[in-house]
């Protein structure tokens, strides 16, 4: 005869696993964004940037990037944006599919 585990133990374990995964994911995203933004020298004011993705963007990515600034054009994996809000850029750059952020003089 053995003691049966309480049924909610696996619920608690699953919840803990979800929380840890989300926490780790968020922390990684913030570090990733900080690295990209410091390399691009992003300041506090709005600016123009080129975001290089790890692939040619689809509608999903274009829609998301349109939300952080004026999307001017897309060349291959490069997305050219003007008047980008730095706070929004920091949020967007947490995505693992953004490989590089570069300043751009704009047009």
């Amino acid at each position, binding site marked *: 005869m*053995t003691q*049966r585990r309480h*049924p909610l133990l696996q*619920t608690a374990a699953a919840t803990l696993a979800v929380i840890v995964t989300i926490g780790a994911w968020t922390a990684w995203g913030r570090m990733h964004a900080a690295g990209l933004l410091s390399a691009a020298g992003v300041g506090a004011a709005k600016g123009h940037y080129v975001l290089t993705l*790890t*692939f040619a963007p*689809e509608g*999903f990515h274009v829609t998301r990037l349109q939300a952080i600034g004026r999307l001017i054009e897309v060349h291959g994996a490069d997305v050219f944006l003007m008047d980008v809000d730095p706070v929004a850029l920091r949020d967007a750059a947490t995505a*693992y*599919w953004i490989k590089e952020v570069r300043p751009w003089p704009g047009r």
Partner: protein
Amino acid sequence: MAGSLAAPAVPLRRRLERPAKGALGILLFLLAWQVSVPLVGLEPYFYPAPSDVAAAFADLVRKGILPVYVIDSLERYAVGVAIGTFAGIVLGVLIGLSATASRLLSPTINFLFAIVEVAWIPIFVIWWGYGYKTILIALTYVVFFPVLYNTLVGVRTVPQPLINAVRVLGGSRRQVLANVVLPAALPSIITGLRVGAGFAFRGLIFAEIVAAKTGLGYLIFEGAQTQQTARTIVGMISVGLLWLLIDRFYLKPVERATVERWGLVIEADQRT
């Protein structure tokens, strides 16, 4: 009480036997599917192979699309199920305890029960537009009825002697509700929640097909629209897997814990 339930130890081999057989069944199905593709000889957009679906899955993850859609769908699902459950319990208890409320609300609720959420969604879109609100209201609507009817059954089948006992001891209506009616009805309420949560996925997918630009329902629809059928199948498999995980790790354990705590369960060592 639940923690003290005793059960005979099951050998590891026997415990693994069932999932192993299940996994073998899935493997055989995938193998038959993969082998059938060259035999059928249709274009991948018409009849994709499991390997195409796996490639589409990897592509959706690599591009960050699937994680975002899963999170969006889960968020809508959780909020819709929570609101629908709350509304179902409140109205179920009210109708179950009050004859006046029952006479007043039952005809309307019975009438609305027959109108499925699919019929409402176009109206919801007109009223609240495409997006979060419409999806949430459609989901709430789907979850509401199973929870309400199960709560009603639970409340109406509370043994009267239990209620009388508390009343005789001077218990107020609130004490009867909190200490007798709700605990006694809880197993039924949880069953209603489980049924409603299962239906909620159907409502979610349909609402996202009609009213969203993200989410698994949208992925399923967009994949079919753009002839990326493998993506549609990834969306379908994701929905199925999410439901299995939610049921396995949340709904089933909560139902079991509730039944063991408040339901008609006899401890193993008291059965003899």
